[in-house]
């Protein structure tokens, strides 16, 4: 039985943030097709069908990627750069969700073509509300690119 397509790729290493994000997606019935990867190397393997994900169809793209910047192995900026450089993946909306409010990070991610930048709220309620708004916007309102 083929698995249903993934709607959301969550690239996040902090287990608390993963848990809160998945909670929000479930609580608000935004999607039950969320795939989690916990470092930049695994993210690239998943996206480009390599390593543990060899054979995965690259054309099978999520509707949105939620990307933390601070990741082990390969950082978020590099993942973003690879995503936006490849015609097979550059149309996937990438929402950077990070604790960083540094001007440099913000400007650099936009220059690399990130679609949106959300500073993660520290408060649980505000965090889940932000995830809810992100989910509603990118899964229900935004029209995805072809592919």
């Amino acid at each position, binding site marked *: 039985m083929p698995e249903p397509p993934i709607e959301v790729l969550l690239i996040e290493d902090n287990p608390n943030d993963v848990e809160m994000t998945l909670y929000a997606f479930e609580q608000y019935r935004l999607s039950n097709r969320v795939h989690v990867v916990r470092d930049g190397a695994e993210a690239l393997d998943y996206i480009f069908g390599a390593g543990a994900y060899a054979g995965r169809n690259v054309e099978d793209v999520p509707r949105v990627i939620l990307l933390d910047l601070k990741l082990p192995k390969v950082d978020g900026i590099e993942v973003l750069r690879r995503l936006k450089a490849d015609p097979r993946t550059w149309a996937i*909306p990438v929402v950077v969700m990070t604790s960083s409010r540094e001007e440099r990070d913000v400007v650099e991610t936009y220059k690399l073509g990130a679609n949106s*930048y959300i500073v993660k709220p520290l408060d649980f309620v505000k965090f889940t509300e932000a995830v809810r*708004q992100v989910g509603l916007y990118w899964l229900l*309102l935004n029209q995805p*690119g*072809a592919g």
Partner: protein
Amino acid sequence: MPDRDVELLLVEDNPQDVELTLTALKEHHLANRVHVVRDGAEALEFAFCTGAYAQRRPDPRPKLILLDLKLPKVSGLQVLERLKSDPRTRTIPVVVLTSSREEPDITTCYNLGVNSYIVKPVDFEQLIGAARQLGFYWLLLNQPPER
């Protein structure tokens, strides 16, 4: 000429759609930072501080450009192409809000680096709802690039 910093540049020639969008934004008290231009040529003059907008200071840049595709004088796609290819404007979030559901338009916009693509609902209440949601997302939730 706006006497306050413009947060949202609305590029739309249909007066009814302008009205509905502003109505939606008023709910979040965002409408007084909106500047409306009604064709693609004027949009570019505003963005690049030329022609009728030669006296406008480029900074702070708008948090969002809401762009219809079907515009007089210069098309929405041409405006998008100019905005996303110039380093002075390419990091400004651009959301295409258009009646077009055509694959070529969607694909072209994503290839040009559009941040988001929204198909205008035909129903006017749904259009107000969409404008409200995107106003909240891009003007309140999203972290804009350096201004």
